[in-house]
């Protein structure tokens, strides 16, 4: 197995002068310089006592500095833990403390708030401050400061790691109200990247988009496939990524050839990006994942961007992409059903089971379970949840239960039917409705909270919170939204709030979610 950091080292040796990364500012770095900067990160981390199996946090916006830090962490043999730098510092601190990071790269503006939150949780990782992440210069001066204070770090060798060594821990929304860490190994990642090589057949002149944030599993395809194939990774600023006009201009300006994002971003581009006025001829492959792509918008996109490959990739963070479907060149005018998620990827196996975990007959609906080398090792520090994530009583393999209901079509592979639990996807982000409820229950005036997702043509889903209060009076919506935005990421803040004297109950006295959903 080639470890993730070796992709960079090999590309730097073979194509050192080529641009490896374009930063959101438009500045660039070559393979040789990126590898050199990552080596310095490795040496400093090793000097700080970081080694195989350790975790190192990243609370930094997407930049060349961030990518160099990631490769430096991997070279040291450690795993990186990317945290959403736009989410509240308290949530970031919970994650970093939960997985016990030994060191953490933090963006200048966030350092004070994050350190205070970490201290409140009794955690004191070594903080490495990247003042203004952009083209790598801030990371270099951070390392210069360390050299000046502690003496130059000795040059070490990149770690020899195997497939079971930790690669990264990605935290996703947790149903109990706390984010949970998906532990993924070097081997989990590399088998997926090899699959990407086979399916995408990247070229050295390709330019990969990096739209998803690094704490999102879509980033694994972006970063490592681009670097492995000596191509160029084009970072997209988080804010620009939400603004269709600017995003369309950035795609044209940077000459992106392989695109990967959630479908909602592509829908936004179709509706507001004035794509007809842009030259996007260089784009040759469009991959999307994370939620269902409504056919009406997919059809419009394929008309505006003709002659490209369109790939529907499916898979939870726990397995990364595990099934895929290549959309036929033309979408019939009368087609309304979303496209299938397709057959299982070549490196994995799939079965469909009933609620008791028994395989169902071919074509019947059931839960999709996945086995193979990209399946997660475990959740961080959550033994019980790890055990529940796999089918019990199977001795043939570790079968990860996706929670997604599918049925198999003999010709087209799996067709997605829905969820068996309370997880929803909003703009490609995984949202546990229970985590939002746990946030609302922290509000001193709230007596009962029930959160439901309702389908919406434009947004995919809308999240609505149904509440009853202790004094029976409504709470200001502005105050409620502000309360939530201080505790959970903005994409999880409910779109609407409704107040009830008491929440409707079923005959067994549980909240009647079905009634809240249908508004009956």
């Amino acid at each position: 197995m080639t470890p993730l950091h070796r992709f960079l080292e090999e590309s730097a040796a073979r194509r050192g002068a080529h641009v490896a990364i374009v930063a959101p500012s438009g500045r660039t770095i070559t393979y040789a310089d990126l590898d050199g900067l990552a080596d310095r990160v490795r040496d400093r981390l090793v000097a700080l006592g970081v080694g195989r199996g350790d975790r190192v946090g990243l609370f930094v916006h997407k930049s060349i500095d961030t990518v160099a830090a990631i490769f430096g962490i991997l070279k040291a043999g450690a795993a990186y833990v990317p945290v959403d730098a736009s989410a509240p510092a308290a949530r970031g601190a919970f994650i970093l403390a939960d997985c016990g990071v030994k060191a953490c790269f933090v963006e200048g503006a966030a350092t004070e708030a994050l350190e205070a939150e970490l201290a409140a949780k009794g955690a004191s990782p070594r903080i490495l401050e990247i003042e203004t992440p952009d083209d790598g210069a801030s990371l270099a001066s951070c390392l210069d400061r360390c050299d000046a204070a502690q003496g130059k770090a000795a040059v070490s060798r990149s770690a020899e790691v195997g497939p079971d060594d930790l690669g990264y821990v990605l935290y996703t929304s947790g149903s109990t109200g706390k984010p949970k860490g998906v532990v993924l190994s070097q081997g989990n990642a590399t088998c997926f990247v090899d699959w990407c090589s086979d399916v995408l057949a990247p070229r050295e002149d390709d330019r990969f988009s990096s739209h998803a944030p690094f704490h999102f599993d879509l980033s694994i395809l972006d970063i490592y496939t681009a670097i492995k194939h000596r191509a160029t990774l084009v970072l997209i600023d988080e804010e620009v990524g939400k603004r269709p006009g600017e995003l369309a201009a950035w795609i044209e300006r940077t000459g992106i050839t392989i695109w990967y994002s959630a479908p909602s971003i592509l829908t936004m581009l179709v509706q507001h990006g004035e794509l007809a006025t842009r030259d996007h001829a260089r784009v040759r492959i469009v991959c999307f994942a994370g939620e269902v792509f409504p056919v009406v918008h997919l059809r419009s996109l394929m008309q505006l961007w003709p002659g490209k490959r369109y790939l529907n990739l499916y898979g939870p963070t726990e397995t990364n992409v595990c099934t895929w479907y290549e959309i036929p060149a033309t979408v019939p005018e009368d087609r309304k059903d979303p496209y299938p998620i397709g057959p299982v990827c070549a490196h994995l196996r799939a079965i469909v089971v009933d609620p008791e975990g028994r395989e169902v007959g071919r074509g019947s609906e059931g839960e999709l379970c996945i086995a193979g080398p990209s399946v997660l090792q475990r959740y961080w520090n959550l033994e019980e949840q790890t055990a529940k994530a796999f089918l019990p009583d199977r001795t043939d393999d570790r079968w990860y239960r996706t929670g997604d209901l599918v049925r198999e079509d003999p010709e087209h592979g799996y067709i997605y039917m829905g969820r068996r639990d309370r997880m929803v996807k909003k703009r490609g982000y995984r949202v546990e409705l229970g985590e939002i409820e746990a946030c609302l229950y922290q509000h001193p005036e709230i007596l009962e909270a029930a959160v439901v997702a309702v389908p919406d043509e434009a947004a995919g889903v809308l999240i609505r919170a149904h509440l009853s209060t202790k004094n029976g009076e409504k709470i200001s919506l502005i105050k409620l939204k502000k309360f939530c935005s201080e505790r959970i990421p903005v994409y999880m803040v409910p779109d609407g709030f409704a107040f009830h004297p008491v929440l409707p109950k079923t005959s067994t006295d549980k909240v009647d979610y079905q009634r809240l959903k249908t508004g009956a």
Partner: protein
Amino acid sequence: MPDQNAIMAATKSFILSEFLEGEDPDELTEDVELISSGILDSLATLKLVTHLENTYDIKIEAHEADEDNLNTLVDIAKLVASKL
């Protein structure tokens, strides 16, 4: 030509009816942070921009449609007034 106060009042009632149904109008003061607090998400911001462009017959450039220019009613009124 509407002045900044008129623009603010009109925008306030648009935001209340469109995104904050049932909210007490007194809560939406001119300095409430609309974008950074999550009251307006990216889709809602696009809707607001389209509304302002149509109502005042102005063009808001893509790079202007952000937190710096649209975060409060005061910011919005200033931006619109500068284009009239």
